[in-house]
């Protein structure tokens, strides 16, 4: 950024005030341009490096916790890691520790659990938010998830396999078309076909794009009042939220998945992984 040293002999004519001002303004503008480029670099790369470090730390802590205390702590503290998220169609190495809470401190580390929503495996809605750009961008490719793709949550004692629900345009011909794929064996639209509004789960599809103010998507029954049904009648869902479109906060991209299977971890054998973990859908 430093300019060349001044020439040895003084210039023939000293620059006037106007020239000096123009030069000063020019230098300030060039500097601002460089600062903005640095900021772009920071957002796209530096935040990823910082988050990767924090996420690795959180993963280690989680491993330690699970190794040392088998007893479940049902209410994790804010910012504490309590589960792990796998999305096999994003690659076998896709795994993130999930933190409690959706504040900046939680989301800087990785995906964050909406406090007050269900925990993994429980009836209701296990809802998680994550960054789509920068900060490790765990939910960068959420728009690429297809119906029936598996999303796996691991807790201290179990694996919970969720699968993305049918998308809105697939529901009509689900049984004859998309639902016949091998992965979709246990995935059915949750709509009640007889009810005009589709029943309790009439507005629950695999993917939706909503306004940021639509907090109802993380309700126990998405897009229905909090007390629409007692827990006994609620399906066990998982919901992922992130920003949409990329690099914008205009809308939110929402993914809903339903619990299809649950594996208890064998005592002392944490290396055993469910077979869904290795599936990768094209």
């Amino acid at each position, binding site marked *: 950024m*430093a300019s060349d040293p*001044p020439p040895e002999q003084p210039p023939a004519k000293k620059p006037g005030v106007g020239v000096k001002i123009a030069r000063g303004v020019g230098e300030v503008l060039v500097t601002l341009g460089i600062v903005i480029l640095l900021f772009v670099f920071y*957002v796209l790369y530096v935040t990823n490096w910082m988050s990767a470090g924090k996420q690795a730390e959180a993963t280690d802590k989680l491993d330690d916790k699970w190794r040392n205390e088998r007893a479940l702590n049902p209410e994790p503290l804010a910012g504490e890691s309590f589960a792990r998220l796998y999305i096999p169609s994003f690659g076998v190495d896709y795994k993130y520790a999930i933190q409690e809470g959706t504040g900046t401190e939680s*989301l800087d580390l990785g995906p964050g659990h909406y406090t007050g929503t269900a925990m993994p495996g429980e009836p209701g809605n296990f809802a998680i938010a994550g960054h789509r*750009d920068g900060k490790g961008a765990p939910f960068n490719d959420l728009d690429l998830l297809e119906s029936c793709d598996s999303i796996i949550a691991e807790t201290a004692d179990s694996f919970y396999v969720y699968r993305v629900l049918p998308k809105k345009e697939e529901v009509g011909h689900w049984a004859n078309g998309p639902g016949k794929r091998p992965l979709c064996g246990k995935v059915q639209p949750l709509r009640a076909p007889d009810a005009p509004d589709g029943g309790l789960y009439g507005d629950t599809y695999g993917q939706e794009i909503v306004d940021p103010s639509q907090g109802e998507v993380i309700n126990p029954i998405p897009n229905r009042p909090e007390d629409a049904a007692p827990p006994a009648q609620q399906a066990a869902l998982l919901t992922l*939220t992130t*920003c949409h479109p990329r690099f914008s*906060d*205009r809308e939110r991209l929402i993914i809903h998945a339903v619990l299809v299977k649950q594996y208890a971890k064998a005592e002392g054998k944490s290396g055993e992984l469910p077979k869904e973990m290795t599936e990768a859908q094209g």
Partner: protein
Amino acid sequence: MYAWIWRHLPGPLAVRVLTAIVLIAGVIALLMFVIFPAIEPSLPFNQVTTE
């Protein structure tokens, strides 16, 4: 501005070049670790939750 700073750096050329590099590194570090993290939360694409 930069010419003015350069003229006011003390010492021989090598020392001045070193000082200049340290100054630039300091400014970049200040931006990366203090200023950018402070303004970053107000970026639109950090809003990933519903209200």
